[in-house]
Every structure is written in C-alpha cells, then in structure tokens.
C-alpha cells in the first residue's frame, strides 16, 4: 500500500509543485486529454457531490419532518430562518409561481454550502484516507471542479429556457430571442426593410447568445474560481507546514487559521451568491422585455 503524497514529503521546489499538481488531479475514469470528453467521469466529484446532496436533503428533511406550527426548537428555528430567507428572496426576484423555484433555490444554497464546506477539512485528510484505500488521486471539493459549477449553471440555463417558453410561449420566446435588445424594423414592401430586419435579427440573436452564454459561464466560473483559489491557498499553506521548519509550521498555523476563518465566510457567501444568481436568472426568464 502506498500512501498519498504529503506536503512534508516534498523535497524542495520541485517536490512541492509536484505535491500541488498531485492534489489537483481528479479521480477520473480515465486520463483526459481533450477539454471536453463525454466518456469520462470524475468519481471523486460525483461521490462527494452526491454525499453532500444526501446530507443536505437529510438535514432539510429532518427539519421538515419535525416541523410544527407550535413553538419551534432551535434546529427548526434555524432551518425555518433559512427557508424564510430563501422564500423572501425568491418572492422578490421571481414574479411568478415559485412551487419549484423556491425549493430549488433552498436546495442549491444548502447543497453548495455543504460542498464548499469540504474545503474547510485539512487538505490532506481525505486524500490520505483514500490513499490508504489504494486510491491515489482525490479532489474532495466538488465545487472546485468546473463540471459541478458548470453543471449547475447549465441546469439554471435549461430552467430559464423552460420558464421563458412556459411563460411567454415558444413564439414569445423566439420573438424575444430575435427582437431584443435592439428591437426590429417594421417590414414593408421596401426591400431595404428586409435587409434591416435580417441584420437586426442577426445582431439580436448574437447578443442573446452572448447574454445567455456569458451569464451561464460567469455563473459557473464565479463559484469555481472562488473555491479553486481557496483550495489552492490551502495547498500553499499546507506547503508551509510541510517545510518542517519552526517558521514554516508557525506560519502554517497562523495563516491556516486566518484563511480557514475567512473561508467560512466565503463558503457561505459563495453559496448565497450562487443561489441569488440562480433566482435572478430564473426571474429574468419570467420578465417580459
């Protein structure tokens, strides 16, 4: 049995960058060379994402089961505050039926917060445990994997198409796609208006593609960037401790503590922002231009 690479094993500059590169390797079903390959799975991301999903559902289900309209316990109070916060935000941002959207926002907030919170575990714990089970690559933080964040952003994009078509009808949606944001010329017998309509249509469609694409890209990128950077800084801090000098260990303790405390904020803030953006995009799908 071979143990995973620890920061303390690194000998010098080269060893440390190898340590970080090793920690950034996913447990993939096979080695990926292309940017996109639909035949590959990241088992670590999937495992921890599903684990967090199960925990989030368990957490919420426990509160839902015990929910009484009488005097609530502390746990119920906390969950209710969360539910009410989400409900209020959803109500403020989406003007339409919230039967699916509000629960989705709640679940995405709790799920993302749980996934982000894995980042607070010391960076070598889970990989070391995995290494003991003969698994040599493990990135336990699902939100530092673009697949997760883009997966969620893609879900939001699909939902915003769905709601757009549901609210405005397919015709309304296509009209909006071709006629907003620049508007459309009135088509008459004059052939010039036909050319104008085509040009404006192309411009509008182009703008909409940029809007939807950019929105989804930034939605996924924002969470990924924050968590990836946070994870990377934890690796660097682990490297300080791995230097095994008094100064290095002292700095490891100080910076590690400071970053972990700061990261609690980031974990919740990024989950909140992700939820708010989800609601904002779904709210836009409900709005008429």
């Amino acid at each position, binding site marked *: 049995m071979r143990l995973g690479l620890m920061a303390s094993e690194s000998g010098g500059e080269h060893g440390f960058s190898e340590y970080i590169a090793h920690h950034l390797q996913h447990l993939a079903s096979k080695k990926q060379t292309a940017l*996109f*390959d639909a*035949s590959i799975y990241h088992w670590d991301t999937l495992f921890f994402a599903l684990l967090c999903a199960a925990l989030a559902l368990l957490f919420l289900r426990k509160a839902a089961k015990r929910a009484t309209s009488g005097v609530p316990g502390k746990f119920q109070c906390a969950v209710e505050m969360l539910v009410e916060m989400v409900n209020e935000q959803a109500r403020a941002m989406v003007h339409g039926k919230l039967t699916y959207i509000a629960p*989705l926002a*709640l*679940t995405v907030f709790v799920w993302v917060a749980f996934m982000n919170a894995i980042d607070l575990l010391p960076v070598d714990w889970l990989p070391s445990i995995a290494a003991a089970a003969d698994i040599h690559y493990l990135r336990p933080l699902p939100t530092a994997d673009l697949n*997760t964040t883009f997966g969620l952003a*893609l*879900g939001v994009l699909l*939902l915003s198409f769905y709601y757009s078509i549901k609210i405005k009808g397919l015709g309304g949606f296509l009209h909006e796609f071709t006629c907003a944001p620049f508007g459309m010329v009135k088509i008459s017998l004059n052939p010039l208006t036909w050319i104008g309509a085509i040009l404006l249509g192309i411009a509008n469609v182009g703008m909409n593609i940029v809007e939807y694409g950019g929105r989804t890209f930034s939605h996924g990128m924002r969470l990924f960037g924050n968590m990836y950077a946070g994870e990377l800084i934890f690796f660097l801090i682990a490297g300080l401790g791995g230097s095994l000098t008094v100064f290095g260990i002292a700095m490891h303790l100080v910076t590690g503590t400071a970053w972990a405390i700061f990261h609690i904020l980031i974990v919740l803030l990024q989950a909140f922002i992700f939820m708010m953006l989800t609601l904002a995009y779904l709210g836009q799908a409900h709005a008429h231009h």
Partner: protein
Amino acid sequence: MNLNATLFIQTIVFLILGWVTMKFIWPPLIAAIEERQRKIAEGLASAEKGEKSLAEAHAAANEIVKEARVQATKIIDQANRRSNEIVEEARGAALAEGQRLISEAREEVALETSRARQQLSKEVAALAVAGASRLLGREIDAKAHADILEQLAAEIERG
C-alpha cells in the same frame, strides 16, 4: 480544466434535488411557518380584543361602583332622616305620656284630697257632737242641731 460527463450528471442531480425539495421538504416547512404566522396573528388579534374588553369591563365596573355609591349615599340620607323622625316621634310620645301621667296623678291627688276632706268633715262632725254631748252631759239630738253640724262640716270642707 477537464469538462466531461460529470457535468451532465451534476445538472441532473441539481434538477432532481430541486424536485425532491419541492416534494418532501418545502411544503411541511412552509406550511408550519405559515400556520405559525397565522396563529401569532390570531393571538395578537385576540390579545387586542381581550385588552379592549378588559377596558370596557373596567369602565362598566366603574359605572356600577359610582351608581352604588350614589345609591348608598341616598340610603344613608334616608336612614338618617328616618332615624331623626323616629327619635322625634319617640320624644313626642314620651312627652305626651309624661304629661298624661302627671295630669292623671294630679287628678288622683285632687280626688284623694277631696275624699279625705269629706271623710274628715264627717268625722269632725261626729267628734263635735260627741264632745258637745259629753260637755252638756246629755244626749244631743243630732237631728235638732243638724244645721250647726252641716255648717261646721262645710267650714271644714272649705278648709
């Protein structure tokens, strides 16, 4: 930066999580919250109502107490007046009775005096006759000197 099938699985997981939450988590929580909000609203409303009715009851009680006080004063006044009347009546009755007793006693005394005089006059007449007969040494015919005796008796009666 490796994008792969994980992405689509995460999308599906995301949508399913939303569905599960919608089905099993959101409704009981939001129902409990709304139910409690309703209860609190009702509680506040009924508290307000209770306060209002308490104030009303206070006002009514004050009214009753005021009325009772007025009535009590009236009753006390009446009782005072009545007791004065009774005292006056009793005093009048006692006075009348006293006067009556006094006059009765006076009449009795007068009657008794006149009766004693009559008796005395009779006895004096008899004594006078007896004394005179003894002085004269013979029987005096009372009938013969009746006029003198009667005169004497009248003198005594006059007194």
